[in-house]
Structure formats: C-alpha cells, structure tokens
C-alpha cells in the first residue's frame, strides 16, 4: 500500500506540491533508497521526454540495487509544467510491483513495441505506465483542492487552463483531473 501512503501524505500539504517533496516522500514509502536525477541535453524530447531506471547499474551512472535514476530531457527547459509532470510520472515507478518491472531484454522489447503499436500485447509492464500516469495526477493536486476547482469549473468561474497553471502541469494532462470517472480510477491505482 505504498502509493496510498504517499497519496495520504500529499493531502496534508498546503498549496503547490514540489517534485522534491514528492521524491522525498516516495523514497520514504517505497523500497527505493535514493533517486538520482539527471537533466540531460542528450535526450531529444520529441522522441523521449524522460525515463526511469532502477539499479543495479554500472558506470557511467553507478546505481546500487535499491537506487533509481530519473532522466529528463533538458530541451524541456522552457516547459516547466511538462518537466514536473514527466518527473512525477517517472517517480511513480518506485511503486511498481515485481511483475510490472521491465527486468529483461524481452520485456523491454515488448514495452517499446507496445508504445509504437497499439495492437501489440498489453503487458503488465505497459499497464504500469498508465498506472504511473494516473498516480502522478493523484499526487500533483490535493483532492480537496481538485474538488474546489471542479466546482468552480462547473460554475463557469474557472478554466482548465487556469487550473493547470495553478498546479503547474500541462493543460492536456490537467483535463484528466475532471473526468467523471477520476475518483474510480484513483481508487483502482491506490495499491
């Protein structure tokens, strides 16, 4: 129930939820002991906005078995909201279950294939990418705050663009906070 602990903790924070705070709590509630970060100029974010990798990994980025690394493309520099969201989504993989981890070349083949071919097999590894997406949304906006926004949206006093700016994530992702099945989805990913 590690993600649930993070989710509950986040509800006690007032105002903006920084990714540093998310990271520190996520480490506390998962088996990962450290998250290294790299803001890389090598990534072309048209192809890869960011990625998460869990050790053990050798040089040039030695990671112990309980350590992870999140790499974000530096060309997202002008898009702070996207950078926050990509980081938070990748961070949620510290909560992946054993059967959801990509721990072999064969599983990596299947994951990469599914991203490019929607008709390919839906593996537990690919499903966890969706789970991480929703988990990130769940901890980037407190539920109380989300409900206030929802009422304001319904009353025509607010737009999703302004909500997205307030919580500092891209509008295209913020829209998902107001789906009619949002509460159901959050319940399903609470493990």
């Amino acid at each position, binding site marked *: 129930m590690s993600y649930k602990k993070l989710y509950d903790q986040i509800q006690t924070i007032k105002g903006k939820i*920084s*990714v*540093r705070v998310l*990271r520190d709590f996520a480490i506390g509630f998962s088996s990962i002991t450290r998250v*290294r*970060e*790299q*803001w*890389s*100029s*090598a*990534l*072309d*974010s*048209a*192809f*890869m*906005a*960011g*990625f*998460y*990798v*869990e*050790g*053990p*990994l*050798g*040089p*040039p*980025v030695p*990671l112990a*078995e309980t350590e992870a690394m*999140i*790499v*974000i*493309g530096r060309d997202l520099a002008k898009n*702070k909201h996207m*950078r926050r969201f*990509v*980081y938070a*989504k*990748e961070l949620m*993989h510290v909560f*992946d279950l054993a059967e959801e*981890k*990509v*721990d*072999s*070349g064969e599983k*990596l*083949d299947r*994951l*990469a*294939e599914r*991203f*490019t071919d929607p008709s390919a097999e839906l593996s537990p*590894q690919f499903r*966890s*990418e969706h789970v*991480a997406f929703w988990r990130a949304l769940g901890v980037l906006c407190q539920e109380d705050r989300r409900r206030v926004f929802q009422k304001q949206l319904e009353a025509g006093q607010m737009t999703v663009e302004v909500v997205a700016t307030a919580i500092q994530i891209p509008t295209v992702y913020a829209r998902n906070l107001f789906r009619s099945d949002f509460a159901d989805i959050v319940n399903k990913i609470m493990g």
Partner: protein
Amino acid sequence: MHIELEALKKRLYIDSKVKNIKFFPGSERDASPDDFAREINKFFAELENGEKEINVTELDE
C-alpha cells in the same frame, strides 16, 4: 535488426542487471522502438564523455 535496442539491452541486462526501466515517450507519433533506445543510449554516451549531473528537482523550487 534493432541496433539501438540491442545495444541498450546489452548495457542494461548483460553488462548490468537493472531491475526496471520505464519511459515517457515524446510527441513524435512515428517513433520506433529503436528511436526510444537511441535516446537512452545517447544519454549514457554523453555521461561517458564526462557530462555532470544536474538535479531536476532543484529546478522546481
């Protein structure tokens, strides 16, 4: 033959024994598995050239 994907798999699972990797693809809809792998390989190549680590979370303060 996926040259990039094979090189990445060797780095992750033969040279090391990583337990998990996940990613956030970019906006390019026609990206292939080799495109994803190439970007990750580029990251490691850059670090092997001595690129310094910069913390992402510090940029969010």
